[in-house]
């Protein structure tokens, strides 16, 4: 088996699994889940084999050809792709195993696992794609999988609405993405990533920014971040896989792929979009009651960090943070899934509490994840966030200060969450009777906790990912000390304040003690949705009515029915010739003879 074959089978295994489930196993939940988990295991093993086997290659097959324009499908396996593939494989496997336990009592289990397999296929397609057209095809497929999975409990109107919102908002971003791809093809004559990387590229400010639009949509950056919190309507393992670790990271991955097209002005815009997103989302997270919504805003914020890191110039830092984030965010989501299941589908954190003693495995793994995300020294998140702060300190002090402040907020809301959910006393009956789930729930948590703990020691990774990790910024002397000090101050300030301020009972302390601040943050959060609502209801609806008028009156009426009417009038005229009287026809004979005679006589 050549590496190409292995890569192809890694790509096609989940497709086969999805096809099998859809065609044959629609009612057989148990068998469907087994098939899907086996496919996920195969993918994980294949991905790690490819990554650590060391083979790096590209392969391409021509698919469509229109004269001189050809669309190819191909695989580009370099260090970046190998890293992303490993993350997708490992986290995907953890989520699949977790789903075995989490979705055990769900009636539509087969459909769920089919959706998970379709998602894995689409995501691996994005990772392995060697040109932008192919990436776009799988990009849209991933969007569809997200829609399908958010909409899993389709009897709920909120789930359907959230799925539609996710897809439509993504579509807006994808419009920019497509324009960027077309412009890139027009300017460079190719959209193949290898050819762009090797050859002379036409630099423009517009192309990378348009391509970035795709990342804005997919990775939930400002102003298209509105779909991600609503996407929490889907089952929690879906949130862990798609909306935390992999799909939303696809935007970052795509940015890293098109690194060669970047110009400084575009990078600045990208850096600021990321930074502001990080700040905005962190502020929104502080007032959330739903455990998954806190994590959703946290994801948006961390994605902002990654985007900012890329904008500041380092693919390495962005991918490093993506890797560590995948581990600890998936762990946070799966942990919250365990908590939700343990409290019998309760998601309000103010009805939880005291789970530390009742769900010990979940507690300890969740704690490790929280420590990682807030930047506890030694754990994964510390190193990756540090790298980004070093990068910001050296390139753009304004971005550095905003990101540092956001880190305070990150620590603040994560410790708030951790304290209210796990410490104190249970606030409701379900929390009192909470218990740990089975091995299929706890094993992935432990594995991800281990990765969150040691994942930051990137020098320990085998040589496999050198192409990416060698680009992580290293700080010398004074910079290193300043950034380290900042990280520690930020950590202590944020975490300490939250620990001291929030009481574990009586509802949200912030709401009680400073309702003004609480309301302000709430308004901040809903401002985008309100804005979009207004736009759609007023502006877009009016434009739609105008177009509808043109369509009904102009096109259907004047053009279509008008032409039909004109033809009908012509028909009336011709019909008048059919009098049915013999003499009329004989007169026509006479007329014809006269004309012929005129021709013959030379008169006509």
């Amino acid at each position, binding site marked *: 088996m050549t590496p190409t074959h292995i890569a192809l089978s890694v790509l096609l295994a989940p497709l086969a699994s999805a096809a099998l489930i859809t065609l044959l196993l629609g009612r057989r939940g148990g068998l469907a889940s087994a098939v899907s988990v086996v496919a996920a295991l195969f993918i994980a093993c294949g991905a790690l084999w490819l990554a650590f086997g060391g083979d790096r290659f590209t392969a391409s097959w021509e698919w469509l050809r229109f004269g001189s324009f050809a669309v190819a499908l191909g695989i580009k396996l370099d260090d970046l792709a190998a890293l992303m593939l490993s993350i997708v494989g490992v986290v995907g496997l953890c989520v699949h195993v977790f789903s075995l336990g989490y979705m055990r009592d769900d009636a539509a289990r087969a459909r769920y696992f089919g959706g998970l397999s379709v998602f894995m296929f689409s995501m691996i397609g994005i990772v392995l794609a060697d040109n932008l057209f192919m990436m776009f095809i799988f990009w849209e497929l991933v969007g569809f999988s997200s829609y399908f999975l958010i909409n899993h409990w389709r009897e709920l109107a909120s789930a359907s609405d959230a799925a539609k919102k996710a897809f439509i908002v993504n579509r807006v971003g994808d419009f920019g993405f497509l324009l960027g791809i077309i412009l890139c093809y027009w300017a460079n004559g190719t959209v193949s990533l290898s050819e762009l990387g090797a050859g002379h590229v036409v630099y423009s400010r517009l192309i990378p920014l348009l391509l970035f639009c795709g990342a804005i949509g997919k990775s939930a950056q400002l102003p298209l971040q509105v779909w991600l919190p609503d996407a929490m309507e889907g089952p929690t393992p879906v949130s862990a896989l798609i909306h935390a670790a992999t799909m939303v990271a696809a935007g970052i991955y795509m940015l890293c792929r098109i690194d060669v097209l970047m110009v400084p002005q575009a990078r600045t815009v990208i850096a600021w979009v990321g930074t502001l997103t990080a700040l905005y989302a962190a502020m929104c997270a502080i007032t959330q009651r739903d455990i998954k919504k806190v994590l959703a805003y946290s994801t948006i914020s961390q994605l902002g960090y990654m985007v900012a890191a890329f904008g500041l110039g380092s693919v390495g830092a962005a991918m490093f943070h993506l890797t560590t984030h995948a581990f600890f965010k998936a762990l946070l989501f799966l942990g919250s899934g365990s908590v939700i299941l343990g409290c019998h589908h309760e998601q309000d954190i103010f009805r939880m509490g005291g789970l530390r003693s009742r769900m010990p495995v979940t507690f300890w793994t969740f704690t490790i994840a929280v420590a990682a995300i807030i930047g506890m020294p030694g754990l994964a998140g510390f190193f990756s966030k540090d790298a980004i702060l070093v990068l910001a300190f050296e390139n753009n002090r304004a971005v550095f200060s905003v990101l540092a402040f956001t880190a305070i907020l990150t620590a603040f809301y994560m410790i708030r969450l951790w304290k209210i959910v796990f410490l104190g006393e249970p606030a409701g009956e379900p929390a009192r009777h909470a218990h740990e789930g089975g091995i299929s729930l706890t094993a992935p948590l432990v594995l991800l906790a281990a990765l969150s703990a040691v994942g930051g020691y990137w020098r320990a990774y085998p040589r496999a990912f050198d192409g990416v990790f060698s680009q992580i910024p290293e700080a010398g002397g004074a910079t290193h000390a300043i950034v380290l000090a900042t990280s520690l101050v930020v950590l202590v300030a944020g975490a300490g304040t939250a620990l001291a301020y929030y009481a574990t009972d009586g509802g949200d302390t912030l709401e009680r003690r400073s309702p003004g601040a609480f309301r302000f943050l709430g308004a901040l959060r809903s401002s985008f949705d309100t804005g979009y609502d207004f736009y759609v209801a007023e502006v877009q609806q009016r434009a739609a009515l105008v177009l509808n008028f043109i369509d009904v009156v102009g096109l259907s009426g004047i053009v279509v029915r008008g032409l039909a009417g004109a033809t009908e009038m012509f028909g009336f005229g011709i019909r*008048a010739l*059919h*009098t*049915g*009287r*013999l*003499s009329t026809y*004989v007169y026509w004979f*006479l007329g014809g003879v006269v004309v012929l005679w005129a021709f013959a006589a030379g008169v006509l």
Partner: protein
Amino acid sequence: MTPSLDAYVMLSSALFAIGFLGVLVRRNTLVIFMCLELMLVAATLALVAFSRFNGTEDGDVFVFFILTVAAAEVAVGLAIIVALFRLRQTIQVDRLNSMRH
């Protein structure tokens, strides 16, 4: 005195014109048929006159053909008219206008 060629040809044209006018104007289908025959005969007359005055027999031979064709045509035509009468109980052409739009 023998009539000149012109006289024969004029007679032939006159007969033809009368026949044509009859087809145009008359309402009885049988009369229209008679007028058709008149047109045929007029043409035959012209042919015979020319053959007589040119001294050949070509025109004379034509007579047989024309009269044979006329007879066959009349047979078919009358059969159609009889069938039509049986269907529509009329042979007035202005009432036989079911082909009107």
